[in-house]
């Protein structure tokens, strides 16, 4: 089997699937040319991610990593969400095939992209040190 039971579970029954109408932050990463795009919607109250939804165009692992990442940041403070690593997502899914690791990178970046968007709309808030300046699709080795 290509995927672990956990990956298949999150692929078949994605958690937090959908969009948020009045989202406080939206992050989109990936490229249709590469075959995956993730879009993450956040609701943030007092520095806590109170709700999160996602939409993904991509393969089974792209959908599963999106789903897992949303579960891992839901209800968490922004600082903690910024610590989410692609490795943690992979571990939580009981592993991914080597050529699918980039999907987990995308999931991590989708969270960060959404948080960058949040602070862009809230210049009055102090940016956490862990917040990246920007997410560049071109930086990813996936497309070469």
């Amino acid at each position: 089997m290509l995927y672990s039971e956990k990956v298949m579970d999150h692929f078949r029954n994605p958690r937090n699937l959908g969009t948020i109408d009045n989202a406080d932050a939206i992050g989109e990463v990936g490229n249709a040319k590469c075959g995956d795009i993730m879009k993450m919607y956040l609701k943030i109250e007092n520095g806590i991610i109170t709700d999160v939804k996602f939409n993904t165009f991509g393969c089974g692992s792209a959908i599963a990593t999106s789903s897992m990442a949303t579960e891992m940041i839901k209800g968490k403070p922004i600082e903690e969400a910024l610590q989410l690593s692609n490795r943690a997502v992979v571990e939580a899914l009981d592993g991914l095939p080597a050529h699918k690791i980039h999907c987990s990178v995308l999931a991590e970046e989708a969270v960060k992209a959404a948080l960058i968007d949040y602070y862009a709309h809230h210049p009055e808030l102090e940016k956490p040190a862990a917040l990246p300046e920007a997410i560049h699709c071109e930086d990813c080795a996936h497309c070469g």
Partner: protein
Amino acid sequence: MNHVYADNAATTALSDTAFNAMLPYLKEQFGNPSSLYMAGQKAQEALYQARETVARCLHADPKEITFTSGGSEADNQAILTGAFLGAQKGKKHLISSAFEHHAVLHTLKKLEKQGFEVTLLPVHEDGFVRVDELREAIREDTALVTVMFANNEIGTIQPIAEIGAVCREKGVLFHTDAVQAAGHVPIDVQAMGIDLLSLSAHKFHGPKGVGALYAKKGVRLFTLIEGGAQERGKRAGTENVPGIVGMAAALEEACAGMEKNNLSIKGLRDRIAAQLTKIPHSKINGVPERGLAGTLNMCFEGVEGESLLLLLDDRGISASSGSACTSGSLDPSHVLLALGLPHEVAHGSLRLSLSAYNTEEDARRIIEHVPQVVAYLREMSPVWKDLEEGKRKHVI
């Protein structure tokens, strides 16, 4: 509920005829065809019969048939033969098409590194090589033309007889990878001017791990595997007797039932196509009327192929896709890209390939489930949302 197997271009179920033909050679008749005693001679006789059968199905002479481990080996051997024979006369130019199987393309790549020059003919939007473009591409130093008989992903049947005629006129060796065609469309190596032809048993309800290479009399094969006098020294190694016997039985059966089978397979395929093309922003790749009876390749905008396959599998349907994720590489299928499809559309492809074993009920279930799965994936696709909202332009 039975599983719907719709990936016959990948492999097929072994036919009862082939299975029963193989059985004695897996057990009692285990002799080595090279042995002089009775058990060996019986195996030798089985090989002789199988060679005659395969030759008959291709309108070839039994001496022109070499048994191999499958289509890939036959492709490798054929192309290296063409290159080697050409190089002896100082000819180091090879012509092929952009959407060949990797067994062909990778062998050509290897030869390119060894100083050969390769021209890949375009296959245009419809998935066909143009004979006039081939004619123009042939040079004084062209050693070999290798163009597949029928494409494995979109099924388009190439103008093989016309290509053969041009090659004959120009005095260039012609190989065709007929892995998808053998047993499915009529093949006459003589009338079609074919010098070398590869086929694989498991694509026509024969066993896996066995194939054949036809080489016209006088074309001296380059030996890939050294070490014995089997296959007249052209392919060492004790012959896969049960496999070869199974292949011959399957090919004979496929050729005998070809017309009747194709009629019913095409009926199912066309019914499925008529319904699935009703899905908005979908497109058929290739030209089904000029293709293999069972192949239907489609793209659905805004969805990704691997997800589509996994969800269809959950609903009991086996199919294939040309998306990057299913290829194990990062790019979508080179076949779909060769048709000029943009990457994002090629990622959303679905290949259904039917055989005579598929039923009306199978077609009904494909027609029921594919639109549901496409709709579900579009619902969660940000690409589809952008298309719907006009932020991204529809390509198909």
